[in-house]
Structure formats: C-alpha cells, structure tokens
C-alpha cells in the first residue's frame, strides 16, 4: 500500500498580526485556500461567504457593546437626584473588581484563542488533504495532534466558570446587580459577553458533534473557521470590557 507523506504546501489564510485578529479577511485571504480543495470550488465559495456573513454579523454585536459603553460613560458623569436631601449628587460608586481572578480568566481566554487557532489550522489542513485521501489506496498516515477543538471548548467553559466565580467574589464584597449603577454595568457587560461566548461554545460543540457524524470535512471546516474568527473577536471584546471596567471605574 502506497503511503504519501503530507508534503503538499497548504496556503493558510493570513491572520493579521498580534494574535487574535479582529474581523476575518473579507476577500483575498479566503480566496487561495478555498481552491486548495481542488474539485470542490463550492466549499471555497461557501467559506468566503460565511466569513463575509460573520464580518457583517459581528457589527450588531459591536453596536450592542457600543451602546452599553456610551450608557456607562454617560451614567458615570451624570448627577442624580438624592431624594433625602432633594439635591443633585454624584452617586457613582467605583466597583472593587476581583482583578486577580479576572486576570486569570483573561489568560484562560487568550490561551483558548490560541488553541482555537490551532484547531482552525488543523481542520484547514485536513480539508485541503481530503481530496487526496479520498483516492482509493492512498493514505496519509495518522495525523498525530491534540483535539484542539475539544481543548478550546473546555477552556471556554473554564472561562465561564471563572466569570461565575468573579460574580461570586463581587457579591462577597457587597456588589450585587442592583446595588449601584456601577455594579449593574459590571454585571451587564460581563454577563452579555458571557452569553455571546456561550454561543461560540455551542457552535464549537456543534462542530465537534458533526465530526462524529462523518459530515464532509470541508463543511465542518466552515463551521470551525468562522467560529474561530468569532472566538478571537470574543477575546478582543473581553479585553476591551476588562480595560473599560478597570480604567473607567
């Protein structure tokens, strides 16, 4: 039985510098590697379209957090009526964030972004080699690599557990959701981010399940690819939220 060593050169889509790029490349980046699928230009097209859809789709997420941010900044500087004295006072109460725990969470999320990228490259490679592997009698040998997708899901869940603990730490310091405007915003921003990240975890789990269902690797790759870009966006968004909450207390 012939064995072909994987010496094919695979063009990866360019990830823009600095680890965890923002928006996925709308065109250009996706063009080359889509066609390495050889006889299935359809998948390349679909990948490009899905990436475009994602780039468009994260715009409202950005708008959502822009709205929260503007509300946050405005509320911070807003004098409010004190009913007891009937005067306008500044009642903003800076929240004492459990920043060590949040820093740990940040590291977990950044590492998950890295493993997500590894998973994305892994499946890109698999998708590129799939046509070769489908030739009868050709085997590329077992690919020895970690299940990065699973690792990312675990790390993502770890981040959510960490956020849960951070909320617990906030409560132990006396900052509940309705304690003050500042604490409401902390829960709001971290909570909305957690919900969006949970959506990413669902998408990853879907991709992991479809790998068991023997869906064609090219189709699975599209799910993993756009979830990866979304995941990097989530990491950036978290850094932004963390910075906002720390700097503009």
């Amino acid at each position, binding site marked *: 039985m012939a064995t072909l060593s994987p010496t094919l050169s695979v063009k990866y889509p360019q990830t823009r510098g600095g680890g965890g790029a923002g928006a996925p490349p709308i065109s250009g980046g996706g063009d080359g590697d889509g066609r390495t699928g050889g006889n299935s230009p*359809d998948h390349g097209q679909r990948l490009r379209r899905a990436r*475009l*859809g994602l780039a*468009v789709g994260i715009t*409202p997420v950005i708008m959502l957090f822009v*709205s929260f941010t503007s509300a946050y900044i405005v509320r911070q500087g807003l004098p*409010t009526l004190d009913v007891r004295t009937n005067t306008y006072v500044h009642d903003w109460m800076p929240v004492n964030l459990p920043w060590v725990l949040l820093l740990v969470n940040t590291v977990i999320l950044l590492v998950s972004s890295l493993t997500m990228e590894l998973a994305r490259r892994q499946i890109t490679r698999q998708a590129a080699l799939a046509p070769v592997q489908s030739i009868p009698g050709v085997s590329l040998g077992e690919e020895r690599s970690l299940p990065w997708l699973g690792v990312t899901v675990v790390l993502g869940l770890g981040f959510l557990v960490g956020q849960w603990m951070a909320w617990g730490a906030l409560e132990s310091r006396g900052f509940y959701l*309705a304690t003050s405007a500042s604490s*409401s915003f902390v829960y709001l921003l971290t909570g909305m981010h957690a919900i969006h990240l949970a959506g990413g975890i669902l998408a990853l789990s879907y991709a992991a399940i479809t790998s068991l269902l023997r869906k064609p690797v090219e189709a699975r790759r599209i799910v993993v690819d756009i979830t990866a870009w979304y995941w990097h966006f989530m990491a950036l968004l978290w850094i932004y939220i963390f910075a906002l909450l720390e700097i503009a207390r």
Partner: protein
Amino acid sequence: MASTEIVHAHAAPQGFIRKYIFSLDHKVIGLQYYFLALIAVFVGMALSLLMRIHMVWPTANLPIFGHIQPETYLMFLTMHGTIMVFFVLTTAPQSGFGNYFLPIQIGAPDMAFPTLNMLSFWTTFVAFVVLLAAFFVGAPIHGWTGYAPLSAVPSAGPGEGLGADLWITSIAIFCAASLMGALNFITTVLDLRAKGMSMMRMPLTCWAWFITAILGLLAFGVLLAAGILLLMDRNLGTSFFVPGGLVFTGQTAVPPGGFSPSTTPIKHSGGSPLLWQHLFWFFGHPEVYIAILPGMGVASQLLSTFSRKPIFGYKAMVYAMLAIGLLGFVVWGHHMFMSGMSPYSAFAFSIMTMAIGVPSAIKTFNWLGTIQHGRVRFTAPMLFAIGFVSLFVSGGLSGPFLAQPVLDIPLHDTAFVVGHFHLIMGVAAIFGIFAGTYYWFPKMFGRMMNEKLARVHFFFTLVGTYAIFMPMHYLGMAGQTRRYSQFTEVGFLTRLIPLNKFLTYAAIVTISAQLIFLFNFFWSMAKGKKAADNPWEATTLEWTTATPPPHDNFGGRTPVVNHGPYEYSVPGASRDYVMQTDPATAATPAH
C-alpha cells in the same frame, strides 16, 4: 465578486410544509413577510379607526369594545404604533419585497444564507405573536416609543405589568430577526451579484434595500441594548432608566386587568429616563429611513419604467440615499428638544436635521426630472409611485419646521407632529408598498391586478389620506394635543370638533377603500388576466425569467448583465427599452 458558477444550495422541496411553511426559498419567505404585514396592517388600521371614533364620540358605546376607557385608548395608541412601525413599515417593503426581488434583480439563485432567512421570518412571526399576546393581558400604555419611567416600572400604570414585558420582549425578538435579515441582505448584495452586475448597475430598489439593511444592522443592535436595559430595570431591580423618589398614585380607573394603585415609593434610584430616549432615538431615527428608503427605491424604479426614460441622475440617487442613511444617525436629538437639552446640542441636531433636506430635495427633483418629457404610462403602479412623491414632498416640507427647536417646542406635543410623520413615514411608505404590489403582482402570482379597481383604490386612498393628515397640521397649530384620549370637554378645543369629525369620516371612508384593494388582491390572484413575462416592458432581471419565477429564479440559466437598469428609449435600439441581459451592441453601449 460575482459567483454565477455556484450551484443552487438546495433542490426544490416537495412536501407542503417544506414548500410553503418552513421554506428556504427567498420568494416564499418574501410572500410570508408580505402576508404577515398584510394581517398586521389591518389590525393596526382597525385600532386607528377605534381611536378616531373615540376622539370625536368619547362616550359612544361601541359594539364589541363598549365604552372605551382612557387607558384603553392609550393601549390602542401603543399597539397601533408598534404594529405599524415594526410589523408593517419595516416588514413589508424591506423584508417582503426585498426578500422576493433582491436576489432576482441581482441575478442570484437565492439569498446568501437561506436557512438564516427562514429563521429570520419565523423569529419575526414569534415577535408578532408575542406582541398580540399583550392584548390579552392588557397592553401597555407607553406608546410605541416606550418612554421611561412609565415603561420601566410595572406599577406605573395599567398594562405596564405583564403587558409591557411582552411588548419589550416582542421588540427584542424583532431586533434579533431584523439583524438576521440585514446580515443576509448585505452578504447577498456583496457576494451574489451575477456576472456584469456591478454595484453601479444595480436597480435603485436593490440600492435602497442594501442601504436599508446597513441602517438596520447598525440601528437594531442599539434598540436591543435599550430593550435589555429596560427588561433589567423592570425585572431585576437595576436603575438604568428609573430615577429615585418616584411615587405612582392617583389612579382612579381600575381596568379588569387588575391594576392596583400604589402609593409607596419605588425602590429604584439614580437612573436617567433621558438615557432611554437617547438609545431609543438613536435607533428610532434610522428606523424612519428603514421604512421610507425601500419606498424611494420602488418609486425610482417605477417612475423610470413608466416614463420610458432613464432615471434622472442615477449616481446622484445612490449618493443621496447614502447621505440620507448617514445623516440619519446623527439627528436623533431632534426628537428630544423637549427634554431640556442644551441649546448648543439642540442647534447642532437642528442643523444636521435640516441638512437631510438637501439629499431629499435631490431625490425629489430627480424624480420630477425623470417624469418630465417622458411618455408617461399612467398605470396603477405609476399612479402610486407619483402619489409616493407627492406625499413625500407634503410630509417632508413640515420636517424643517419641526427641525427647529423654537418651532418644535410649541408643536411637539400637538397633532402637527402626528400629521407630519403619518404623511412621510406612514402613508408615503404605504404608497411605496402599494406601488410595489401593483407592479410586481404579475411576477409574483402570474396574473394582472384589475386596473379599474386599482384606480378607484388609488383615488380614494390619495384623497382620503390627504383629508385625514393634512388638517392635522392645522389642528396642531390650533393647539390640539396628541396622545390625549379626550378633548371634547376642553373649552378652547371645542371649536375643533367639527374638523375632527371630518377627519374621522375621512378615516372611515379611506379604511373602507382598502377593502377594494384587498378584494382586488385576492380576486386577481385567482381570476385576474394572465400576465406575460414582462407586462410592463421593464428592463431589470426579474422580467427576464418565467412568471412566477422557478425555484432557482432563472431555471438553470445564469444571467449575464450587459446594461444598466434604466435603459429606456435608447437611440438606435430596436425597442424603446433594453433589458439588462440584452447583448451589448454598438447601438446600445454599456454604461
């Protein structure tokens, strides 16, 4: 960019459910949106009729509704506004016609993401059902703008409990649905245009749907944010919008819903009601353009087609729409001149608002330039397109008045504003929908609508809507307040009662005239004259395909575009129109 070689992602479905209910076909989804809006518009119209009757005969004992209480009037007001703005004016022209004709007009087999498209419709449907559910638990009384703190405190008034929760939930679901739709529209325009269909060869309808989708993409996320904050204020005890020290008391009328008056101060403190207004109107003003831009696109398309002339200033039309969309995001403060904002901010918002007059005037003059010296065919769709321009001008002219703080402050809470926005946002957009319906009906259902009935419908609707909304400007200047359920007892307003009665009669006649449309619509669907593939002798791609279009729109062909969308009366051409897919020749140079 073009992707004509792509195969259709899904084969034609066979079963009834896959074909008509959970269909992935953009044409079926477009019709689903259209029929949803058709149901919604009749609900909304019935509510407006009840309101008009109550205004002039406040003590009347109506058949089903009995004696309308003031809070019931406010519930009708809220539901009328919400249904009309979200489920008619946003749904029919953009999601309805846009879904059906955008892919065909750019030569695509379907939307970019058919499953998302289906999901988007059914999410809209759920939002509509949730909104209607509010009727059965006591609808909220805070108006379609939902100003806090009335909307933020469940004990603030009748209907502000579960009813208001359902209202906000419905809005939030609608936001999600609209965002999915906008994502699909933008990706489709950017990625699925046929070979030769450059952006500047797209029909102006496609430009309008595209720009509207961008507005929706940016605006609905903000409304969603506001809705989330409002739900948290109502249910989780936060104080984003609720200031401290509020006491709700003095309610005398207790409806069957079980509203109990409370005199205990609420537990919130420190919130800002104005924050809601800022977030809401940051969405709300672009929403006005979401409602009207598709109508502008349809009007441009029809005026050119039925004048047998190219559209006057195609590029200017595109840039004007872009300018209107852009400016729409920086004028939200003009809805808030009453809020005590700094005169400096008010001045900035005022200047920006009046600047919108420039692109609007460009569009209007270009429409008139298109008709001028044309061989105008006065068909029903053309009549409605001209009606659109007429209403756009009449409604738009009162805009610069309201854009000035010194004039807006006395006029803001009067019927003047009601007349203004009903003409420009309500009726003008509705005329766009009617024009689109009469124009595309042959393509959608394979039969022509009855022309005589359509003309009768046009006459009653144009004269009727002017009769209803024009006098409102006068009523407003004479001091008639809006949102008040009853004014017949107010001394200085009694002399306005005869005019108000005239408005109500006009409303009854105009609403009855819509039954002509309804009859024509369903009768023509079954019995209308069979339509040819291109009955209007138009140039855009939907008229090159069969009637109604096959599942993949072009029956296996992939259209190639050689011409711009409005090549009418081209010198040297054999016919007075050149289809976009006609081969390029020396006599008919491509753009």
